[in-house]
Every structure is written in structure tokens, then in C-alpha cells.
């Protein structure tokens, strides 16, 4: 092996490892010296740039039924080979195989801190699960162009092994990982916008610089009780906090929320509250917190019997530049607490 040649370990399933078909899908992880089965295409694509020192084979059912154990066992086999690069698959449309490829690559990156690449078809469930963490090369649905796919896997893998940054997803043939990173391009945004509009007007293709977000549907719950029997809680993302912000809710990019008692209170005393929210002018709601959290009005409704009960805890966070991930997590956690406390409905005030 030349001095720059990389030690590569491949992972293939029972079929691509020439053990057999579905009848062998239950075999556990095993290792074979050199390149076996589909890994031979990887070796061919590597040429002098690297050597497939070993091939790990694992049955798809074993990988699917006990994923953590399978990955741990495969990882151990990989580690012992001291590789510079791991290439898994390609898995094409085989779902169990694709998910296992993604999982192994993610584990290799995290534990061994060496690059790992895999490849599969766009509809393989492994893509959605692992695209953010793992470089996944896009392949067709079948092994017809195996050598071609192997070449693209190897090219990307060697780039990563050399510590170089890969090209844009379209250029290098991998699925966009959904991460954004500032770069400096050749023309300013105004010029690019003008050019893009002219393309759009002329019916020419153009590449939008921002993917449109896709939010899943949330089924709408039904209020089972009547209002007169219901417990209503108040929640806000407008940043209401007690003076001193005891929970340290961040004024921007919040990751925390607070639970504040209004038990026995007819309203919110402005002197006892504050507001660190940086996304709007908070002077009006500081002057009168009811402009944000309507405790006064809802308490009256409770006293009149129009609603059953005003829940004694107000949940609050700061909703400016909050990540989707943290927003969803906080929402879930608050919802669980409210449900455990017997709350039936929520009025959420958002700024």
C-alpha cells in the first residue's frame, strides 16, 4: 500500500456479502478479510488510493430487530481494523439495510471520529433518518450501476478522509443534509435576485437559495367537557417572567420556560413581573402584564362560572429566534405537565 493509501472497511448486508438471500437475513455481524461481494466494486473504485482491508457483513433482520446491539457489534469489528474510512452499502431501496447503513455511519463518526459515507435511493427510509448526520450519496433503486455508485461513494469518502470540505450536494451527488453555513459567493444578493427574477420571468430554471419548510399536520383535539366544567391554562411565548427572571429564560434563542403560580391571584401585579423578550417592544406588557397574559379576565370568567377553573400555573417562555427543535420540545413538555395536572384547554398568547 502506498503511504497515502487509506484503510477502508466496508459494511454490506447478507445479500451483497454473498451469504444468501432473505433466508440469511438473521445472521449477526461477522467480518471477512479484504473486499467481498459488493465491496469489490468499492475496491475497484478505490484503485491505488485505498485498500478495503475488511468487509463487515450483517443480516438485515438482525440489524432491524436489535439495532443498538447490531451497531455496537459492528462498530467493535470496524474499530479493530483501524480504518481511515468506512463505506456502507450502497443500500438502494432496501429499507432495513439503508437504516442500518445510516446508523453505522453515524456511530462510526461519533465514536471513531473518522469519516463514513453510504449511499441509497431517495425513498429509502434511511435518508430521512440520517441525512442530517451522515453523508448519503444518492443512488438508483437497484444495483444495476453498482460500479458507478461505488465510484461516487469512494470519491466523496476520500475527500472527507483527506479532511477536505465536500462540494455542494448537487455537485457531489449526496442528499442535502439540511444544514446551512455562511459562504462568500461571487455576486451580491441583489445581483443574484435580479438574475433569478429574470430567469423566473423567462421561464428558465433557477435554483432558489432557501428550501421551503414543511410542517406536519397536527390533528386538532376536541374539547370533551363543556366550558363550565373545563380547566383552562394560560401559556405565553411573550416572555412574561417574575422580577429577576429566576429561571434565567434567555432573551433570544430560548431553551427554557418557566412555571409561575397564579394561585389565589385575581390578577398580575406589574411590580412583580418583568420581560426579557428581545423581539418586540415590551414596555406595554411590562406596564400591564394582562396585555400579554389575561389572568384578570379569565379569573372573572372563572368566578362567573363561565369556565370551570383557571389553572394555577402560567407557563412562559421567550419566543424570538427559538429553534424549531427547542420550541417543539418545550411545547411537548408543557403539554405533558398540563395534561398530568388535569388541564383541558390552553389559551396561548403569542407575540
Amino acid at each position, binding site marked *: 500500500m502506498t503511504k497515502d493509501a487509506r484503510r477502508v472497511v466496508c459494511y454490506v448486508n447478507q445479500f451483497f456479502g454473498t451469504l444468501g438471500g432473505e433466508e440469511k437475513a438473521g445472521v449477526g455481524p461477522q467480518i471477512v478479510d479484504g473486499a467481498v461481494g459488493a465491496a469489490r466494486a468499492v475496491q475497484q473504485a478505490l484503485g491505488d488510493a485505498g485498500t478495503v482491508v475488511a468487509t463487515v457483513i450483517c443480516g438485515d433482520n438482525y440489524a432491524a430487530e436489535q439495532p443498538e446491539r447490531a451497531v455496537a457489534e459492528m462498530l467493535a469489528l470496524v474499530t479493530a481494523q483501524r480504518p481511515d474510512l468506512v463505506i456502507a452499502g450502497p443500500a438502494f431501496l432496501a429499507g432495513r439495510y439503508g437504516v442500518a447503513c445510516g446508523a453505522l455511519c453515524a456511530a462510526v463518526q461519533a465514536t471513531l471520529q473518522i469519516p463514513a459515507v453510504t449511499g441509497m435511493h431517495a425513498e429509502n427510509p434511511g435518508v430521512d433518518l440520517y441525512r442530517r448526520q451522515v453523508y448519503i450519496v444518492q443512488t438508483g433503486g437497484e444495483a444495476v450501476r453498482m460500479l458507478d455508485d461505488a465510484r461516487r461513494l469512494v470519491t466523496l469518502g476520500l475527500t472527507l478522509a483527506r479532511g477536505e470540505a465536500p462540494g455542494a450536494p448537487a455537485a457531489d451527488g449526496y442528499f442535502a443534509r439540511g444544514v446551512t453555513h455562511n459562504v462568500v459567493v461571487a455576486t451580491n444578493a441583489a445581483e443574484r435576485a435580479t438574475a433569478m427574477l429574470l430567469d423566473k420571468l423567462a421561464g428558465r430554471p433557477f435554483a432558489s437559495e432557501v428550501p421551503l*419548510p414543511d*410542517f*406536519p*399536520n*397536527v390533528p*386538532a383535539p*376536541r*374539547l370533551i367537557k*363543556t*366550558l363550565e366544567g*373545563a380547566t*383552562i391554562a394560560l401559556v405565553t411565548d*411573550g416572555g412574561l417572567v417574575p422580577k429577576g427572571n429566576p429561571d434565567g429564560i434567555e432573551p433570544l434563542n430560548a431553551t427554557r420556560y418557566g412555571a409561575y403560580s397564579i394561585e389565589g391571584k385575581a390578577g398580575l401585579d406589574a411590580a412583580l413581573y418583568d420581560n426579557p423578550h428581545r423581539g*418586540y*417592544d*415590551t*414596555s*406595554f*406588557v411590562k*406596564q*400591564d402584564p*394582562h*396585555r*400579554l*397574559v*389575561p389572568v*384578570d*379576565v*379569565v379569573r*372573572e*370568567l372563572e368566578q362567573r362560572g*363561565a*369556565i370551570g377553573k383557571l389553572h394555577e400555573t402560567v407557563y412562559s417562555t421567550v419566543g424570538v429566534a427559538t429553534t424549531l427543535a427547542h420550541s417543539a420540545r418545550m411545547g411537548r413538555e408543557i403539554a405533558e405537565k398540563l395534561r398530568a395536572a388535569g388541564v383541558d*384547554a390552553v*389559551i396561548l*398568547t*403569542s*407575540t
Partner: protein
Amino acid sequence: MTPVAVMVGANRIVPAAGIIHPLGNADLSLEDEKALRRRIVERALVALTTEVTRPTVFANE
């Protein structure tokens, strides 16, 4: 921010009185402000008891 609420999939949406004072209005007297707050909260209660199948805005009539 109603369009954002529709987009992210919130099912029951009640437009309020502005970002800086969703349930108030500094230009009104305290009494009128409270009346405004009551009206918006009452609309929220209507929304809570209305069956919906997709993001629905309960707008001011």
C-alpha cells in the same frame, strides 16, 4: 403573526391586538382596554369549543 401560526399548523388561531400588546391597547382607557381583552378571550373560548379539522383563524367580525 397569524400567517405563521397557520403555516406551522396551529389549529385554532385568534388574531389579537398587535405584537406589542396582544390583549390590550395603550391608546384606550383602562375600561375599554379590559373590554377589548374580554372580547378577544371570549373569541378564544369560542374557538376552543369549535370543532376544526385544519388551521382555522377565528377572526373579528
